[in-house]
């Protein structure tokens, strides 16, 4: 399945609930969607044959955060990436567990490490960090040590 084919299949049913379908290396493509429409997108993509949810992860882009879902289809033998942006001040998205039960632990991990809340998650507890751990290690604001001085003045070039 090519990226444009993916867009042709998804666009009619989802309309502007997906913002774009773009190329992504070694996969069928990356579907960017609005977070309000998360469950609709999940169901549509699941109906396309992507029954296996490989992983859920988050990226902290400082001003906003990105949640991505990597899915696999046994029919087309391809991966597809779903991704949505959530504002850092209000980082939450609908849980994918009703569609893919395997999202359970991946979302727990993303919640505790990247600080993205998954609404209606059945069991949102700490997984890798201890209960009550107040930090979110995978945020850019969580520094392992003081940032190196990387400012290089023009005359040194």
């Amino acid at each position, binding site marked *: 399945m090519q990226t444009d084919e993916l867009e042709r299949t998804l666009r009619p049913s989802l309309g502007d609930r997906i913002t774009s379908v773009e190329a992504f290396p*070694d996969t069928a493509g990356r579907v960017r969607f609005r977070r309000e429409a998360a469950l609709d997108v999940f169901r549509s993509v699941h109906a396309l044959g992507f029954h296996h949810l490989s992983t859920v992860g988050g990226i902290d882009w400082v001003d906003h955060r990105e949640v991505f879902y990597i899915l696999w289809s046994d029919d087309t033998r391809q991966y597809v990436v779903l991704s949505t942006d959530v504002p850092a001040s209000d980082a939450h998205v609908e849980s994918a567990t009703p569609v893919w039960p395997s999202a359970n632990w991946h979302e727990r991990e993303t919640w505790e490490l990247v600080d993205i809340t998954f609404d209606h998650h059945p069991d949102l507890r700490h997984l890798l960090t201890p209960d009550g751990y107040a930090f979110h290690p995978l945020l850019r604001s969580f520094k392992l040590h003081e940032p190196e001085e990387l400012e290089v003045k023009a005359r040194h070039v």
Partner: protein
Amino acid sequence: MSEMWINMGPQHPMTHGLWNLRVRIEGEVILDVDPEMGYLHRGIEKISEDRHYNEVITLMDRTCYVAGLAWEHLYMLAAEEALHIRPPERAQYLRVLCEEFQRIASHLMWYAAFVQDIGLMSPFLYGMRDRDLILDLFQSYTGARMTYEYMRAGGVRNDLPPGFTDRARKVLDWLLPRFHEYDQLCLGSDIFHKRCDGLGKLSAEECIRHGVTGPMLRSAGRKRDLRRDRPYAVYDQLDFEVAVADGADVTGRYLVRMEEMRQSVRILYQVLDWLDRHPGPVMADQLPRWLGAPYAPVGREGYLLKRNYPKGVGFSAIEEPHGEALAYVVNEGGEHPYRVKFRSPVFANLAASRHYLVGYRVADIPPIMGSVDVCVGEVDR
């Protein structure tokens, strides 16, 4: 006996690592389980954000301590894509060599631990003995037995030493009849079948619903193997079968892993032949200077050289000994990867543990969890 929760772990012979399986039992029957992870969480994804691309390799060896080279391969595939580097073909064959040997070593380690779990004492040492031969081979060309640090962005660190392929063939010739011995010791025993048949059932549909991959999925009859379905490196040029079984139980997983080892031997013979016939470079020649050698100070010069380098994302998926492993590397400029995300197969396999443990007995936990092949290092990362 009334209901009670027992903690199997974090120090418990069944866990083979550092995790805690909380089990609610009534008598000896399991009513509920709740795995507690995180005892080995080292934040590998976070530390990777603070390291140069080649320095992350060190962490990969420690991600799964029995399948270090497979994880190096996984990371290298993603990192090279993010960095727009392509390794020479010989390096790719060498990586496949590493991965397949690592698969056998990992499965042998699994075999040793698994038979110990069901009380078979001697095969434990047989498995360890034969795994040692492979570790010796690793030592002869990577210099280490566990933390190899062999692969690099753009290829592998060094070529094979002279005479390696013959030594490797000797090991493979020794291994093949051993697999038959293993089968005799396990499948030939009635008690083994009594302990393992029909245990830990998880159908293919359930596996896919819960994200379970690898030998567990293949034991349910689903022929999914990323080496075959989505060939990476040079797997499309190699001839092998995907091992499947139809029991969906502990015995099925045993059969799948045994067959996988045989197929790995088959692949390795082909790879060794190819390596004999095609000498060549093992590193890409057009490498960006700032990549440097690992642990060489890159510093300011590196940063400057890096500034004009194109951004990119890398995505790779390999069939690790335990199942489907993914890596997602974001290169946003800068010396370090912006974000690295790994998907561990055991993570998902463990997450589904409620679905293949509940209803069985406490005494069934060791064989079932043994058949899952838990490697805590890659679950917690």
